[in-house]
C-alpha cells in the first residue's frame, strides 16, 4: 500500500507524484484522491507566473516560426498585427526571453569524419508533409518533407540517449523522461533543471528517386 499512500501524500503536499505499479483498487483510490484534492478552493487557478511564462514561450515559438518562413502568409500577417497591438510590456518580455540564458542550445548538423549517403526511403513514399523514421545502424532519426524541402533529424534524445518516438505526426517524444522536440530539432518541452540541447540535424538529399542521409561509413 506504500505506492498509493505516497501518491496521495504528494497530492496533499502539492508535489508531482512518483510512479508505482497500479492495480484496480489503487486506481480507484487515486481517482478519489484527485477528485478530493481538486475540490480544494482555489486549486483550479493557475499561478500567474506560469500563465505569463507559457505566453512568452508561445510568442517565441511563433516568432521563430515566422523567421523560418520568409514569405508571409495571411495567418502570419494577422498574427504579426496582433503582436504589434499587444503593447510595450509584452515586447520587452519577449526580448528578454530570447536573450536570456534559457534559450536552447543549437543542435548543429551531424557531419561524420568518414561518411556515406545511406538510402532510407523511396522519394515517392515521402510526399509533402510526411515524416518517416529511419534506422541506419550508427544513426537513427526521422526524415520529412516540408515546404518542398527535405530535412532529417536525429532520433536520439539529447538528455540520456533514449530513442524518440513520433507523436501526432509532428513532434518527437522521449519515452524515458517525456522531453518533447519539434521536427526541426528544437526543444519544445522538458522537465530538467538545466537547458536541454536541440537535436542534431542530419544532411539529407534525394538522388535517383531515393531519399538518402549522410552518416558514418
Amino acid at each position, binding site marked *: 500500500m506504500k505506492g498509493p499512500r505516497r501518491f496521495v501524500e504528494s497530492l496533499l503536499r502539492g508535489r*508531482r507524484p512518483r510512479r508505482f505499479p497500479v492495480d484496480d483498487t489503487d486506481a480507484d483510490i487515486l481517482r478519489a484522491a*484527485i477528485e478530493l484534492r481538486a475540490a480544494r*478552493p482555489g486549486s483550479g487557478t493557475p499561478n500567474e507566473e506560469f500563465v505569463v511564462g507559457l505566453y512568452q514561450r508561445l510568442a517565441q*515559438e*511563433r516568432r521563430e516560426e515566422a523567421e523560418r518562413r520568409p514569405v508571409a502568409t495571411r495567418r502570419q500577417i*494577422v498574427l504579426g498585427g496582433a503582436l504589434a497591438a*499587444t503593447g510595450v510590456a509584452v515586447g520587452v518580455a519577449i526580448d528578454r526571453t530570447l536573450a536570456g540564458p534559457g534559450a536552447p542550445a543549437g543542435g548543429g548538423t551531424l557531419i561524420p569524419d568518414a561518411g556515406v549517403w545511406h538510402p532510407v526511403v523511396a522519394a515517392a513514399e515521402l510526399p509533402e508533409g510526411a515524416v518517416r523514421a529511419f534506422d541506419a545502424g550508427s544513426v537513427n532519426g526521422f526524415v520529412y518533407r516540408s515546404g518542398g524541402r527535405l530535412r532529417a533529424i536525429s532520433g536520439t534524445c539529447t538528455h540520456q540517449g533514449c530513442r524518440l518516438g513520433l507523436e501526432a505526426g509532428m513532434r518527437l517524444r522521449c519515452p524515458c523522461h517525456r522531453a518533447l522536440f519539434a521536427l526541426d530539432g528544437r526543444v519544445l518541452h522538458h522537465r530538467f533543471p538545466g537547458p536541454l540541447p536541440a537535436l542534431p540535424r542530419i544532411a539529407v538529399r534525394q538522388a535517383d528517386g531515393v531519399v538518402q542521409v549522410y552518416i558514418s561509413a
Partner: protein
Amino acid sequence: MRRWIQSRHKPSGPADRPQHETGAPLHLVQGETYASWEAIYLDNVHRIYRLMFSKVGNRPDAEDLTAEVFLTVLRPLRTTATVGEVRAYLLTTARTVLAAHWRHTLGREITAIDVEQVATEYDHPAENTRSAQLVERVLAALPVRYRRVLELRFLRACSIGETAAELQTSVGNVKVLQHRALRLAAEIVRDDPDAAG
C-alpha cells in the same frame, strides 16, 4: 506583467460581441472567431489548467500538461477558426495529452477527459459544479469521522499533525483513518454514475 494579463484578459475576444442577455459574466459565443492568438491563449489557458488540475490533482503536472496542450495546438490552429472550433480542438488535444500522461507515468488511465461532457462546463466555468457536487455526495455518504479527516486533509490543507489535534487523536490514527476513509470514498466514486473517471 500581472497587470497586463488582467487588463488583457477580457477585452481580448471579438471586438463587437453582444452583452450577455442574462447578465451573467461575458462569454464568447461559439460562432464567433478570436481576434488573435493572444485572444485564444488568454481566453483558454485558465480553463485548460483548471480542467487538467481536476484530472491530475497537482500543480506541476497540471502546468506541464497545460503547456503541452498549447504547444501542440500552436501551429495547426488557424485564427480564422470559430471559438467553438478552437475550444473543441483544445479539448480534443487535452484529452490526448492527458491519456499520454497516464500511459507514460502509471501505465493506465486514472482519469480521462470526456470531451462532450466537459464542453458545457468549459464554456461556463463559473457554473462548473459537477466535481464539487460529486465530492459533496461522497463526503455526505461517509461516516462522520472519515468525512472530517478528508475535509481537513484535502479541502482545508491541514497537515497530519493539525488534523490529529483537530480530531483529538494521534498522528498514527489519522493516517489509518485517512487511508480507510479514502478507500471507502474510492468505492463511492467508483459506483457514482456521474463520476467521469
